[in-house]
């Protein structure tokens, strides 16, 4: 009753989200109430400020980048579907999913999609390469003022040297995958 009725999640929507993201019914309702509690403007979408109000996120050195990942290119608001789609990347991979229909499109939380999410935290301009500058930017965010430019530069150079295989002085997605896991 009251204003909440207009923001209730309909059954059909829950089913669609379930199919798209793989979250269970109760997980979706739980995350929906989380979404609405973050949505201070009560307009059904979240803005960047809504995310920054979470203290634990605000003190995360990569907080801004992570928040960015929720917003599609050039947009300032994210609705519940978009919110769930991004969160779906972090759902643990369950065993029974490996036997699913091989012709179905890759689930959002596949290993490759998880790695792509992390890759995109580095690759700000989305050109599918992590350049030295982009690497430096992320490094600077993580260490703050505690390491000098020269030291940071040499860390970046060393990292690119070790990961780069085709000699273009940047790290592609495949090189990234090889670097972070076997």
């Amino acid at each position, binding site marked *: *009753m*009251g204003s*909440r*009725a207009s923001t*209730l999640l309909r059954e059909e929507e829950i089913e669609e989200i379930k199919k798209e993201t793989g979250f269970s019914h*109760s*997980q979706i*309702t*739980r*995350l929906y*109430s*989380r979404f609405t*509690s*973050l949505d201070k403007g009560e307009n059904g979408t979240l803005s960047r400020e809504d*995310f*920054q*109000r*979470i*203290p*634990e*996120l*605000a*003190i*995360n*050195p*990569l*907080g801004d980048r*992570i928040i960015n990942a929720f917003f599609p290119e050039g947009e300032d608001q994210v609705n519940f579907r978009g919110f769930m789609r991004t*969160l779906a990347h*972090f759902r643990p991979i369950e065993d029974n999913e490996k036997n699913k229909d091989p012709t179905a499109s890759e689930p959002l939380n596949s290993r490759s999609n998880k790695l792509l*999410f*992390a890759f995109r*935290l*580095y690759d700000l301009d989305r050109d599918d390469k992590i350049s030295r500058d982009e690497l430096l930017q*992320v*490094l600077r965010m*993580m*260490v*703050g*003022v*505690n*390491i000098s430019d020269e*030291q940071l530069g040499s*860390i970046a150079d*060393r*990292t690119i040297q*070790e*990961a780069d295989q085709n000699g273009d002085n940047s*790290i592609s997605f495949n090189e*990234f995958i090889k*670097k*972070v*896991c*076997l």
Partner: protein
Amino acid sequence: MTFYLVSLLKFFFSAKCKGAKDNNHLLYKPYSNAIIAKEPTSLEEEIKEIRRSGSNRDLDHASEFEMSDIFYFCRQGVESIMDDEVTKRFSAEELESWNLLTRSNYNFQHISLRLTVLWGLGVVIRYGFLLPLRVTLAFTGVGLLVVLTSIIGFLPNGRMKNFLSEQVHLMCYRICVRALTAIITYHDSENKPKNGGICVANHTSPIDVIILASDGCYAMVGQIHGGLMGVIQKSMVKACPHIWFERSEVKDRHLVAKRLSDHVEDKTKLPILIFPEGTCINNTSVMMFKKGSFEIGSTVYPVAIKYDPRFGDAFWNSSQFGMVNYLLRMMSSWAIVCSVWYLPPMTREEGEDAVQFANRVKAAIARQGGLVDLLWDGGLKRGKVKDTFKEEQQKLYSKMLVGTQEDRSRS
């Protein structure tokens, strides 16, 4: 009174069962179905864990920076988006089963006719019968307080005045307690605060004051308000010394500290009642205690207050509704049920500074009340978090990177 409570509980239970039987809609929030399960570990441990599981490299020659380090911050960030410890403390606690109050209902859908009828009956009882009764009592209580304390103000200072003032305060607060149908259980009354001490308690709503003051006499501390509140404050201070500050004086920490310590040194004056969190929290946790009251150096009497949310949620969300609205909601709930524990007095120990002392008292209160002990500042309800916390994380991470470099240059 207990008969009332027991029958209410039976009523809720039967309502819930009926609802659940009619339909397999979720009537309540199964928050036992948490999405994240994590144990607390440090930044260093977790990053090492990630490096170990990913890279095939020998850890003795660990490079300073690994690209996978980003996963740690990434996961922390997304976990805090899904659920964090702080923001949920500033809104009312969720109940496991509905208590037939619309306000504590988050997912109301038409479940069954029977439940709606029960709810309607509840509305009639609460608004038609309980509310008018309570409002009358409240006006009586407050009115008596103002009138009687003003009369006592004319008496000369002395034992008679103090005695009468105590009786008047107690009586009026007890009427207010009835006005809220507050059912309070006091534990360990032998630890009740004595003169010259400071009583600290966790803060959930303005009602905390009424609950504590109906069982003992305290000197209140606060800002002078205008309007009805101001009238009450001015007349109270005629009968016995309370510490009211002008708005401008509140900012001056030295002035505040001086007045407080002057008060506690005078042993004839009543113990001071302070809520060190500085703001209302929703009674599931205790947040950071401001160190001001712990610097004064007198005995601290901790008190833990825990409300039972099934009968009425006492939390005042000041950004959601104002005082009058809040009081109306309180008076139209079923009842306010709470437990008060008087904890043994504590004093600051050798080598302990005010902050450590404050945290020790906070931990004791949290333990007794069954609340979560948080280090976060209640001020985060309205304000932004300080950058120093982010800088701390950055420092920790930098140590990981640079530390290994120093080892290298040595070898």
